[in-house]
């Protein structure tokens, strides 16, 4: 009996030792697979489609990283995480990168010891209500019951908003977006609150999306972006510049369709550096010269990914708004490839 206790203890200790942080880039290359943390299912951001394949802008970002690092956009292990489990999953090394509608905040960056690598969607928190309720402003929600995902910034903003406006509400804490939608439709809450993009995406999956409306108030800034563990700067650089490559590609007019001819035919020196026909940017990152070319060729540039998954021609139907290139009046602005 005593013996088995000791062996058990040793095994646990051994496992704990294995999780120690090290060069994630080398780990991923050695493993031949990228472990990417995503949502449990949010249409347009990351959700498995009918064939079980993960689709959405976060899923596409995971694939772009895998294409850049491993040369294979399908070498991704998608790990669904809830608002509550995501940070533990990343800190423990279960996932290499988290791309899950996660808001860049100071405490997450500094106190939780993560590094945010940019923003792939500028968002803000909104409220959805049934049209039949006849509510036209979030300030009319005094006394309402509100569904909110726990472990999120959403839950904190919600408390702040109602307190600042001196009105009351009753929170119904939920774990996943699917549960939130179900509770909201069942009438367990009067309003569902989360990032406005998430509301649009959730509403798109309803049987009668027209019966529900998003209130005009956006009560917070929610810059959503990918993050990695703090302290592994080489790996952080690779993920950050993969995101920048997708954004720059749109700005420079490089698409999945023309990336091949651009890499040989373009005379623009920045395009040449981005696609690896000139300079040694890939080598500096510890990758080969074609890293960005592969990411763009398989997933498309930022604009293509956006249009395919959440753009105005999709059921989610989001306008580019803040997420347009800086040249079009948006906030997307990649540092130069030089």
């Amino acid at each position, binding site marked *: 009996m005593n013996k088995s206790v000791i062996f058990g203890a040793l095994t646990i200790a051994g496992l704990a030792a294995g999780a120690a942080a090290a060069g994630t880039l080398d780990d991923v290359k050695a493993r031949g697979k990228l472990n990417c943390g995503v949502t449990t299912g949010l249409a347009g951001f990351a959700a498995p489609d009918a064939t079980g394949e993960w689709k959405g802008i976060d899923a596409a970002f995971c694939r772009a990283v895998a294409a850049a690092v491993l040369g294979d956009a399908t070498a991704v292990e998608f790990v669904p995480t809830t608002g509550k489990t995501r940070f533990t999953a990343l800190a423990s090394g279960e996932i290499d990168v988290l791309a899950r509608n996660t808001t860049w905040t100071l405490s997450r960056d500094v106190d939780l010891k993560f590094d945010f690598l940019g923003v792939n969607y500028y968002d803000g928190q909104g409220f959805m209500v049934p049209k039949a309720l006849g509510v036209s402003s979030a300030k009319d929600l005094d006394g309402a019951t509100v569904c909110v995902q726990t472990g999120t910034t959403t839950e904190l903003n919600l408390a702040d908003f109602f307190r600042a406006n001196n009105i009351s509400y009753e929170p119904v804490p939920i774990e996943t977006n699917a549960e939130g939608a179900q509770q909201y439709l069942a009438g*367990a809450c009067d309003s569902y609150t989360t990032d406005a993009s998430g509301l649009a995406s959730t509403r798109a999956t309803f049987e009668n999306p027209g019966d529900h409306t998003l209130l005009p108030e956006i009560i917070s800034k929610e810059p959503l972006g990918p993050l990695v563990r*703090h302290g592994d700067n080489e790996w952080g650089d690779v993920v950050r510049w993969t995101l920048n490559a997708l954004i720059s590609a749109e700005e420079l007019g490089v698409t999945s369709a023309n990336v091949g001819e651009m890499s040989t035919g373009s005379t623009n020196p920045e395009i040449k550096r981005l696609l690896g026909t000139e300079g040694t940017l890939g080598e500096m990152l510890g990758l080969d010269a074609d890293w960005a070319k592969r990411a763009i060729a398989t997933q498309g540039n930022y604009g293509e990914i956006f249009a395919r998954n959440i753009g105005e021609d999709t059921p989610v139907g989001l306008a580019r708004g803040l997420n347009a290139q800086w040249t079009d009046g948006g906030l997307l602005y990649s540092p130069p490839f030089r």
Partner: protein
Amino acid sequence: MSTTTDPQGGTFRLSMLMNDSRYRSLTLQAIAAILLAISIGYIISNLLANLAEQDLNISFGFLATPAGYDINQTLIEYTSQSSNTRAAFVGIINTLLVAILACITATVLGVIAGVLRLSNNWLVRKLMSFYVEIFRNIPVLIWIIIIFTIVTAVMPSAKSYLGEDPERGMLGGIIAFTNRGVYVPAPFFTNGFGGEEGSIANWLLVIVVLFGSLFATRAMTARANKIQEDTGIRPGTLWTNLAIWLVPVAVVLFILGLSWDFPDPLANRFNLRGGLQIGAPLIALWLALSVYTGAFIAENVRAGIQAVSKGQTEAASALGLRPRRTMSLVILPQALRVIIPPLISQYLNITKNSSLAIAVGYADITATLGGITLNQTGRAIECVLLLMLFYLTISLLISAVMNVYNSSMKLKER
């Protein structure tokens, strides 16, 4: 082990630690203990090293910072600006509330079902076995979810009670069953301590008075017993006891100015306002824990009753006791000795199973300290340690109290 071959006396040699049966078991235990200590030390140092490597540390400073989130069922004053410690206390109180409620109802259900399982009526007997088997053999988490789904799906929406001309009237004009919970009139005191706000002191006073009645009735019973021993005639205690229970409480409630706050369908456009709201998560959790654990308790009760030999019943009826008195004076006191020890573990189970509250969004300690606080602060190790400490303390307390009760019920050997 043979003692005959052991050398008697003589000098101590090191090899005797292994070869001498007097020392061998001690040696082995010492080795095992050292190995265990080394492994635990290794795990802890490993944990600390890994934390240091990730630049993390162990610190309880977060307990004093504002929690930042709201909680839907708070029995003590709490806002999102309260500290994480206070949020933890809200959770502790909610855990204790559901645990106590469930222990009471599970015991009542269990005793009834356990006794009825031995009934002479075939239908009743079979019904009770059905209850026991179905609830005992399906995990309690599933029951919690099933009951929550039923409560939320079957009950009408809160909205149907609202407005000047509601779709649905309240039961007796004062009780509303909605899919968000049950609203009942809330008692409050107009002349009590703490003025308008009311104060816990009022209820403490009522409880103190009830305890006074309890002791007074006990004294009355003791007196009746004595008179019976001395004279053989037992004075009737029913009416005096009833009066001792009711009159003082009634007087105190009257002086405090007991009054009722009814749920108001007009005050808000989303929910009923006022009254006492018993939330759907609490109802689901309470019911599920009660019926689930009640099934186990029923089995304990049945086993306890069956453990009392049939001769006892026969002897009792030979002495002329009626079946009812046989049960309460002869069988149950003996059966309790068998019933109480497993009952302790059922109470412990209820308390620990209440941590499944999270499945229905009930704000117990696992949901506040071990859920939202843990997540928002990222202090996983600290929060889990505190949680473990809480459950351990509560479990040990329950065991201690029940063990005291158990020893008072034990067979007294003279």
